[in-house]
């Protein structure tokens, strides 16, 4: 049950990019925001310069009025300090104001483009990626990128500049003091780069492990019935625990790395201060500097402490952001294998002739040596014809139904609709012509009405025509139960709403496919969760729809097969027989094997007669013995 993240594909080329190159990839998104970000940097720099100039006034104050005892001058100096202080606050407000909106816009734009990219990527991609992993990219990673752009980047640049200017000011007070301070700042930078490598690896690991833990939680909830039925709560907990423990280990490693950089960030400035104090006393005693200059030196150094200390977390934020950026672009860089053609063909009035021509398909990750799952399927559905698709479980029926709408693309041969290769149509048009119902019925958090009319974006949802379509589809799918829901067809279903049973969901999914009024209807075992009575009713109603619609129906039951004009038998990746049900029963042993249970039934009933007599006897004896 343990799931490791290493099956999440990581594109190699992004990880070889340097941090700078990697972050540069945000540029297209951030482009429009940059002018204001630059202005924000300007304002922040202004604030830094003002803060640095306050010690100048202090020096003038200490060496001027305070040493001469001219108290009237104090007012001027204090006034200057006050003015500069207010100016600093104004600059900071400006910085905030400049970077405020652009950052959020960048975040929103990136989030939207990630989302639309994910919707565009083929089903095969989603088979490989957990939704939890995708979610952390869409939410926390982008949040981090935004904070870095409007805060981290601005401060990183500005604080670096402030440190450079501040260093110049320190030198201005005395070259020796400045040198001591700067020499001791150098190890911080060196350590910063060591820190990069260590920290970004741990950060990435922690993000992945958190994603895995989320997956474990999801599974423990979705699989709660299984865990309960077998009393495996403890077992699941052990798995969960071991994953949570490894996350804890990583987090503590992360804290150690942070502690390491904090140690140097705090230690070195203090050592510098102490040495400067000693040197300052010595210099002052030698008459090299005035007390006011020493005073101003420490005031300046104090102003520089935050920029110097901040470099540590700004760097780690930058490296986190780099990881986040990599993760974001991992998705965006994935090549979409199922795209619209450059010059899409169009079928103005589809007749619904669906043809599989030597269709081959294998999953990208199936090992070599295993034959194609679909190994040359040839099958033609004439317009208006209903074709049942019959085969053993796992024979590739569901896969075959996913090919016409291009949920997967064939790996050989082609599928055509009215003679046009489905790959030559736009996906939009193709999926308008062909509607599907899946066995595993998905409903979205929306009203029943919206769920059923999902395929009818052409209808005004409030129009009487929409109502008519809705009601007709609900009637065909025997989904009248929705009218008894709290808000009727306006009731919200799906994750955010009322939970429905499997059979109810399946009927709504069927209604959805019917309401789409497509030229071709593809139904993947759409009645499996229905009871016999309902199934019969649905079938009777479906017959009316299918009279005029081309349909491909995956069938497990004879009753479903009865809906079809012809039946196709899928065996070993090929269609080995096509014909009327009765013909196939007569001609194909495999077909009989797959679909018929009559013989067994008769055998069983004969046996039953004998068993019954025996069982009755036993029971009587038991009763007596009690």
């Amino acid at each position, binding site marked *: 049950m343990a799931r490791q993240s290493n099956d999440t594909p990581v594109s190699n080329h992004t990880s070889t990019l340097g941090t700078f190159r990697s972050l540069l990839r945000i540029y297209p998104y951030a482009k429009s925001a940059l002018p204001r970000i630059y202005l924000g940097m300007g304002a922040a720099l202004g604030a830094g310069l003002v803060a640095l100039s306050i010690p100048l006034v202090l020096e003038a104050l200490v060496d001027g009025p305070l040493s001469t005892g001219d*108290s009237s001058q104090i007012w001027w100096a204090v006034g200057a300090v006050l003015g500069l202080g207010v100016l600093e606050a104004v600059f900071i407000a400006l910085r905030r104001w400049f970077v405020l909106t652009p950052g959020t816009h960048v975040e929103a734009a990136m989030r939207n483009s990630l989302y639309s990219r994910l919707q565009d990527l083929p089903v095969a991609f989603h*088979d490989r990626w957990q939704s939890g992993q995708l979610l952390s990219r869409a939410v926390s990673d982008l949040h981090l990128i935004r904070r870095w752009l409007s805060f981290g980047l601005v401060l990183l640049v500005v604080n670096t500049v402030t440190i450079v200017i501040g260093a110049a000011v320190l030198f201005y007070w005395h070259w020796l003091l400045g040198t001591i301070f700067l020499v001791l700042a150098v190890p911080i930078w060196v350590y910063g780069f060591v820190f990069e490598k260590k920290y970004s690896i741990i950060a990435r690991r922690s993000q992945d492990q958190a994603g895995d833990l989320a997956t474990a939680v999801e599974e423990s*909830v979705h699989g709660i019935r299984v865990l309960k039925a077998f009393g*495996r709560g403890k077992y699941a907990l052990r798995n969960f625990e071991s994953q949570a423990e490894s996350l804890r280990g990583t987090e503590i490693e992360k804290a150690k790395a942070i*502690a390491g950089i904090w140690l140097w960030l705090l230690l070195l400035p203090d050592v510098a201060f102490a040495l400067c104090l000693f040197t300052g006393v010595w210099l002052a005693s030698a008459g090299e500097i005035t007390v006011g200059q020493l005073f101003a030196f420490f005031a300046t150094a104090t102003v520089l402490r935050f920029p110097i200390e901040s470099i540590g977390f700004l760097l780690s934020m930058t490296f986190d952001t780099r990881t986040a950026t990599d993760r974001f672009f991992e998705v965006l860089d994935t090549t979409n294998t199922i795209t619209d053609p450059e010059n899409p063909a169009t079928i103005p009035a589809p007749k619904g002739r669906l043809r599989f021509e030597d269709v081959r398909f294998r999953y990208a990750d199936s090992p070599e040596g295993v034959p194609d799952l679909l190994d040359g399927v040839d099958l033609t559905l004439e317009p208006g014809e209903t074709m049942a698709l019959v085969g053993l479980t796992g024979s590739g029926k569901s896969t075959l139904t996913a090919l016409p709408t291009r949920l997967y693309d064939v790996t050989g041969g082609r599928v055509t609709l009215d003679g046009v290769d489905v790959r030559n149509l736009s*996906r939009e048009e193709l999926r308008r012509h062909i509607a599907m119902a899946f066995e595993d019925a998905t409903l979205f*958090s929306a009203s029943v009405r919206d769920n059923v009319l999902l395929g009818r974006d052409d209808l005004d949802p409030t129009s009487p025509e929409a109502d008519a379509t809705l009601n007709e589809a609900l009637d065909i799918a025997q989904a009248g139960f929705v009218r008894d829901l709290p808000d009727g067809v306006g009731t919200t279903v799906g994750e955010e709403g009322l939970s429905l049973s*499997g059979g109810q969901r399946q009927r709504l999914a069927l209604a959805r496919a019917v309401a789409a009024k497509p030229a071709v209807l593809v139904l993947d075992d759409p009645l499996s969760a229905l009871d016999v009575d309902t199934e019969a009713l649905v079938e009777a109603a479906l017959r009316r729809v299918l009279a005029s619609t081309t349909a491909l129906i995956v069938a497990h039951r004879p009753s479903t097969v009865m809906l079809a004009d012809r039946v196709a038998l899928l065996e070993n990746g090929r269609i080995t027989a096509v014909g009327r049900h009765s013909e196939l029963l007569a001609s194909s042993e495999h077909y009989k094997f797959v679909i018929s249970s009559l013989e*067994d039934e008769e055998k069983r009933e004969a046996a039953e007669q004998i068993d019954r007599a025996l069982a009755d006897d036993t029971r009587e004896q038991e009763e007596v013995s009690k």
Partner: protein
Amino acid sequence: MSSATVTGVEGEERDDFTKQESAQIRRRSLTLLGSLLAPLKLRVVLTMLVVVISTAAQVAGPALIAFGIDRGLPAVLDSNDWMPAFLIVGLYLFTGIVGAVLIAWYTVLSARISQAILIDLRKRVFLQTQKLSLEFHENYTSGRIISRQTSDLDAIRELLDSGINQLVSGFLYMLFTGIALFLLDGISGLVLLGSLLPLYFLTRWFQKRSQSLFRQSRVASAKVIVHFVETMTGIRAVKAFRKEKRNEEHFGGLVEDYRGVNAKVIQLFGVFDPGLVFIGNVTVAIVLLVGGFRVVDGSLAIGALLAVVLYTRRFYDPMEEMAMFYNSYQSAAAALEKISGVLEEKPTVPDPVQPIDLWAARGHVRFDNVRFAYKGDTVVLPDFSLDIPAGQTIALVGSTGAGKSTLAKLISRFYDPTAGTVTLDDVDLRDLHPKDLRRAIVMVTQEAYLFSGSVADNIAIGKPEASLDEIQAAARAVGAHTFIESLPNGYDTDVNKRGGRVSAGQRQLISFARAFLADPAVLILDEATASLDIPSERLVQEALQTLLADRTAVIIAHRLSTVAIADRVLVMEHGIIVEDGTPADLISGTGRFAQLHAAWRDSLV
């Protein structure tokens, strides 16, 4: 809603709590917090000690500089005595090193504490999720219980990771700075004290505004997340019905709402942060003014003035980060309230206090005057009695809503009866030790969930200690061996996202194999063959005939093929048994079952 309580998860979505209710909720989360911290008491004390000392050491700096200028320098100048200067510098170095080392230690210590709390909380919620009855899970959607364990725990992690650290060290820093200031110069201390008033108002204003904004932000982000997850899990339907464009619009709207709220939050900081700097700088100016005059008249040393200015300037440094704490505190508090609600939920199917062991169950199941109603008073079983002798195979037939699945859930103790008892070998299920109950009774449902991991792992859920041979034997018994062998890596094949690559029928076969491996005394099959194709069903049935020969079984099936292997058929309507007999008896009769059977026979080919 006013009559509703706030016990457990009830009223979780409300935001109109009365004072009393809020107090109740707060008490509950504080109790939880207390119980999380209790085992860490010593470590917390140590950590506090470390942070207090390290902060004191850090704060000592400016005062030492003042001493250096006021004492060290004059000593050198007047008597060429370097001792005071050496001492002060040595002390400075010492405090600097101690402060830095201790802060680093503190970072690790506090991470250990927060990780210990987190892992404890994670485990508790996870265990509670597993403990809570199905009734709870059916009402409280999976999405919500998942977000309790993911986003809510993240909110708490964030608070523990940075919030608490910043609050504790920030608060201590300000406290010690204030104390140092008072010790150096009382008058400057008073000025600083005066600046606390505007600081208080600014912070109050910020808190009030941020409180509602942060709530809005959480709501907006939850909407984004739900929509996102729903799209990704339902991607096939999204594509098939061309929902992409519409989704993009809808999602774009949600993202924009979220962005708007976020922008407002940032705006708030845009006022708060410069406000802090403003108050700080004005205070520095005033301190300078008041101090300057006293330096002139000689009542304050020049070095002391420097220290006073440095202290005043540094006093406000932690404020912004501490204000951030309030955000993380708020979302963490809200998260903790919800989590404590989940933890407060009493399982409606509790484990027995004095469990009765049943080492070898025979499989005699009995219902005695069982009444069962779901919440909301819909009575499913009004008064139900049934005796299933050990070893008997029962088929349950009846239309949807007749109470068949309820019966199955009562036997497997997913639910407890409202009145009456269900017993296994004359032991009330409510008293039976859970391990024995789960070993003796196993239910296979239509919804065959596969966990990520290999096929073998999934079968082994039936018996975690099973060897590969046993697993294969079970798979062979239900006819799943052939298809599993043909998978890319055989039994080691990863079933991927929710069994994506395995067909529905194959999933059911795997879950059958699970049940076979578990080898229970009582087996319940609730629509367990619905997705199987006919040959597989045939195999399963043959297997069932051998398997069920010596054990109790309850089979629910819409399709009557399964019914034929039963010793006894019960036809249920509205929670009452309307027909009871052997299949043959019932078929030859004129009742409901005879009709159903005839209709089914006609559908066969």
